[in-house]
């Protein structure tokens, strides 16, 4: 038998757009190399607080943009080449198609570099990743949403999505706590909404402040007056790690079933695909199995709470 020389290398291309005929669909392009960020243009920059800014972005490639569908609670990995990549939750509702909004806190190198960018600049985006809030399952029920600090960023995607399909939901209550009045994000939106009869708002700050006439105290204070129809309510919590235990306890006390209390965990997701290990808690990957877990799942993860 003739010997076949097999020493010629095969080539794996990370460029997915030119390499195939007929052309790939957007879904296929993204799946061909899931590590490949797609160029997106910054279309709007809105400062929210001293440290947080809202960026609106639009993926440039038509096929990829049209294939990009996210759900509330999911995140993207944002690249600035030469600096690095960071995971950031999506703040906009899926109903705002063609664009995504991300709320970014200036915390590290990449987020600082992002804060120095201007409208029209290009960043890299890949995603969306993660298990979202069960939006469809929540329909037809009361929804109780609790956010603390930057936790409002992922929760806003859910809030705005509910807003856009408001008639599908029963009573909607939003509890949002910030440290100071200056750190309240999307304040304008929430202040406009506070007069609406179809959203119950409870906005609170941690400590008394001269510029503040509203509620003062932790978000758990709100539960003293909240009336909850336990059998018909879904809860969603998003905030700093210390908040979860206390808010979950309040929701459980009101009688909401463990598998209807949802929370979004924050860890350092690097790959977003359940592989690199950085976001792992117990046996779960926050990037893949989460970031949204229900309380029953969270209780079963070693080291989660």
């Amino acid at each position, binding site marked *: *038998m003739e*010997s*076949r*020389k*097999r*020493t*010629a*290398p*095969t*080539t*794996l*291309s*990370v*460029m997915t757009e030119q390499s195939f005929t007929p052309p790939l669909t957007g879904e296929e392009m993204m*799946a*061909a*190399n*899931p*590590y*490949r*960020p797609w*160029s997106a243009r910054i279309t709007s920059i809105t400062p929210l607080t001293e440290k947080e800014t809202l960026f609106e972005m639009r993926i440039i490639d038509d096929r990829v943009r049209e294939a990009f569908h996210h759900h509330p609670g999911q995140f993207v990995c944002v*690249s*600035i*080449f*030469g*600096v*690095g*990549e*960071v995971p950031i939750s999506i703040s906009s509702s899926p109903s705002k198609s063609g664009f995504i909004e991300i709320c970014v*806190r200036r*915390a*590290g190198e990449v*987020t600082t570099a992002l804060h120095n960018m201007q409208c029209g*600049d*290009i*960043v*890299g985006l890949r995603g969306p990743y993660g298990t979202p809030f069960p939006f469809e399952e929540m329909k037809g029920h009361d929804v109780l949403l609790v956010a603390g600090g930057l936790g409002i960023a992922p929760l806003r995607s859910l809030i705005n999505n509910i807003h856009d399909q408001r008639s599908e939901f029963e009573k909607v209550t939003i509890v949002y706590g910030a440290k100071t009045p200056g750190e309240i994000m999307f304040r304008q939106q929430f202040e406009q909404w506070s007069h609406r009869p179809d959203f119950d708002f409870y906005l609170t700050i941690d400590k008394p402040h001269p510029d503040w006439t509203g509620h003062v105290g932790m978000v758990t204070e709100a539960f003293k007056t909240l009336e909850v129809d336990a059998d018909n309510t879904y809860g969603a919590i998003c905030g700093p*790690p210390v908040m979860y235990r206390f808010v979950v306890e309040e929701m459980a006390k009101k009688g909401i079933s463990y598998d209807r209390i949802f929370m979004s965990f*924050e*860890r*350092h997701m*690097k*790959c*977003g*695909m*359940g*592989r*690199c*290990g*950085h976001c*792992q*808690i*117990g*046996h*779960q990957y926050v990037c*893949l*199995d989460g970031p949204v877990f229900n309380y029953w799942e969270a209780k079963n993860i*070693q*080291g989660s709470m």
Partner: protein
Amino acid sequence: MLYRVIDTDELSSLIRGFMDDYEFIAPVKADRGYVFEVVDDPSKVELDYVTTITSPKKYFLPSEEVLMRYSAEENEITDYSVDIKPRVIFGVHPCDINALNRLDLVYKDAPYPDPYYIKRRENTLIIGMSCMPGPNCFCNLFGTDEARMGADMFMQKIGDKYIISLSSVEASSTLERYCNPQRATDEDRKEFRRATREREAAFNKDIPHVQEIAMMMDVFHRDEFWTELGNRCQSCSACASVCPTCFCFDIFDRLDPDGKNGSRIRSWDACTSPEFALVAGGHNFRGDNRRRVRHRFYHKLNGFTGSHDYQLCVGCGRCVTACKANINPIEVLKFFDRKGAEQDGE
């Protein structure tokens, strides 16, 4: 599966055949032990080894690799491709083949298949080789002492012959081209059984089998034992470097000296390194050695079972040699063996 038999003196012809056709990787003798390396001289191949210092994992997940190239000025990816050579890895032991099968679950049969890993896996033939256990081997406890899948060819030595199980046509045709494979006789099958039993009997009996290890990891999550191990750990991550199933990685950017272009790089990382679970803002979710060491063993012996129904330790014993603080799965198994006995009131 197809079984064929060749004489041991046909081995060099088989090795030479593979060498002619592929980039050939096999264990060779190095200063302090054995290592997998590219070999071009058949006489350098050392098949009589217990274990190599590191596993063939490095040929599928290099310790550092460029995922893509980019222009930092335009903030866009520039064309870049990875050349992957057709390879043969020869003389791989069952623990390492099973380790690759575990990696397949994470990199291939996963929600986001990894193109770099898959291309390398598809272009690599794995030729397995039977072995006899050393004092640190405990693959028998995790059912990884046999490679029923994951190798293109597996060679079990029986006396002065090899009985070979064939899983791929590519390996099979090389065997036919360079050797004179025969059908296995009843005598060969008996010899096979004898060789298997002999291996089974040779394992170190001081390493306890703890059937309920996964559950024990949950129940004794807060035990002082982890503090003790944590106090000893030096965070050197040697355990993860030599482990054939440790697959965690870091992704980072490295600019070229001109600052205009750069590479996005993936490199090995380990959950035992202090900054592994650090998030932006400074909070570290596993901020001490106790938590980190415990997490590593938890993932190996319980966590991976929860998500993939296999234990992630294959009992190769490499970390037993690599860890200078004597933190290893054997110590963990012995601890839980003692704990289990206490619970029984013994």
